[in-house]
């Protein structure tokens, strides 16, 4: 099986075979992660920069663990301590990093399109760890992995994504990836939280009534709702949001017996998700998603750095 990608920036560039290869590879890394010595020497000598220009704890720590378990050297770059605050341009910053002879940049930025820009400027492999409201491909991969493990496949799965879809980079990657894998996708949100053209993401259906859709769903993907100021907010109050769109204990009877619950974290308990549902022993796969994050990131790093050198093999 061939893998010819150098970057993981736009999940729509990945075929179903590409995505399956990543999931299969992630499964191999699961064995590594369950040993006492959870580390392999594969990426010894590779230097990876985690360029997080926006605060992130979960994604960054997941990448860091993945890099360490592959024996790569990693440098955390970003946050308030760096040049962006000093007024240096993105291009100059990237050129500076490249002078260190690095092999891959993992980038999180609040502006859409930055990973592509970095790829064009730097010439090294780039993984998008979330860019603005655009995409977050490794999140989509870990979601796919968790769903794949729970459901055993993607055929005939109907996935409902509930919440702030219009401002969600998670959706920007997840919805196209689910479509690539052959799932049926329904977006469920108040109209104020929908993108201008849900069909462009690939969604099959859009609904404002979670109770009508819930009985159809095999996977219920709850998005985090931003606890923003109420002035200008796209919904009047958190309690009204919870009543109209929250996955509450009272709604469980509407779910299929084997329907599972996903959430990208961190959870706003009592807003989009009741604690009962978030911790549901049979349904919730939220912690499996977190674990899968390390596995798919190891797989992506392994395949991208190997794949980027494909062709040297004489």
């Amino acid at each position: 099986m061939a893998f010819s990608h150098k970057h993981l920036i736009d999940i729509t560039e990945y075929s179903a075979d590409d995505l399956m290869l990543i999931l299969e590879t992630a499964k191999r890394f699961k064995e590594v992660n369950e040993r006492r010595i959870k580390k392999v020497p594969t990426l010894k000598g590779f230097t990876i920069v985690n360029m997080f220009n926006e605060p992130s704890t979960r994604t960054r720590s997941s990448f860091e663990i993945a890099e360490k378990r592959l024996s790569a050297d990693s440098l955390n770059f970003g946050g308030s301590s760096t040049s962006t605050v000093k007024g240096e341009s993105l291009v100059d910053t990237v050129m500076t990093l490249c002078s260190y002879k690095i092999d891959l940049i993992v980038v999180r930025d609040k502006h859409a399109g930055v990973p592509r820009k970095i790829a064009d400027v730097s010439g090294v492999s780039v993984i998008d760890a979330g860019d603005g409201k655009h995409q977050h491909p490794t999140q989509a991969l870990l979601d796919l992995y968790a769903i794949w493990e729970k459901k055993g496949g993607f055929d005939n799965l109907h996935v409902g994504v509930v919440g702030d879809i219009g401002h969600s980079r998670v959706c920007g990657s997840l919805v196209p990836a689910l479509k690539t894998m052959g799932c049926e996708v329904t977006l469920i949100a108040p109209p104020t939280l929908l993108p201008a053209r849900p069909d462009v993401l690939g969604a099959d259906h859009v609904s404002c009534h979670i109770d009508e859709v819930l009985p159809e769903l095999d996977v219920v993907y709850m998005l985090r709702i931003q606890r923003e100021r109420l002035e200008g907010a796209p919904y009047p109050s958190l309690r009204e949001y919870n009543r109209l769109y929250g996955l509450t204990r009272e709604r469980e009877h509407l779910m299929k017996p084997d329907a599972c619950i996903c959430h990208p974290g961190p959870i706003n308990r009592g807003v989009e998700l009741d604690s009962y549902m978030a911790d549901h022993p049979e349904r919730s796969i939220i912690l499996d998603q977190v674990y899968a994050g390390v596995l798919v990131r190891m797989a992506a790093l392994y395949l991208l750095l190997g794949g980027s050198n494909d062709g040297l093999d004489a």
Partner: protein
Amino acid sequence: MTDERTVKSICMDEAEIERAMTRIAHQILEFNKGAENLALVGIVTRGDLLAKELAEKIKEIEGIEVPLGKLDISFYRDDYLTHFAPEVHSTDILFDIDGKTIVLVDDVLFTGRTIRAALDALMDIGRPAAVQLAVLVDRGHRELPIRADYVGKNVPSSHNESVRLFLKDIDGTTAVEILDVPEGGRIGSAPLSKNGGE
């Protein structure tokens, strides 16, 4: 891919391989004074099948079922960049290797790099009491200080030849063949993926 190579000669046929495996099984038992505390770990993709066969023979001879595992060394290779094959096989060692005498099993011993990787992988999994090496063919050209404890057959080969084991279950025929590798072609036995991903 096989069609790029020309078969030069068959150095072991099915019967010969069968006899060699039987001999190795006896030697393992003799050297270790039985099958107690013994475990077999085959290196994918070929060594795992040979290990399975050895386990069956040991059971026939000694009546003991030794633990059997398989090891994928993709994450331990030192030629990750130049010989990247994206398809990773699974490592399956469902027993505790701590304190055991592990017999690593591979098809062809060549440079020794695969065994080096396998030893590293094994050490990351646990702490065996001892590790021994069984190979069907030793073709020479070692690049590392590694030698086999059990050898089916020593096959002198030239550096630009490939010595390869074919097995009925995967390849339709069982034999060890010497093949000519065209200039620039890949020499060595691993990794061999389903689609000839080399």
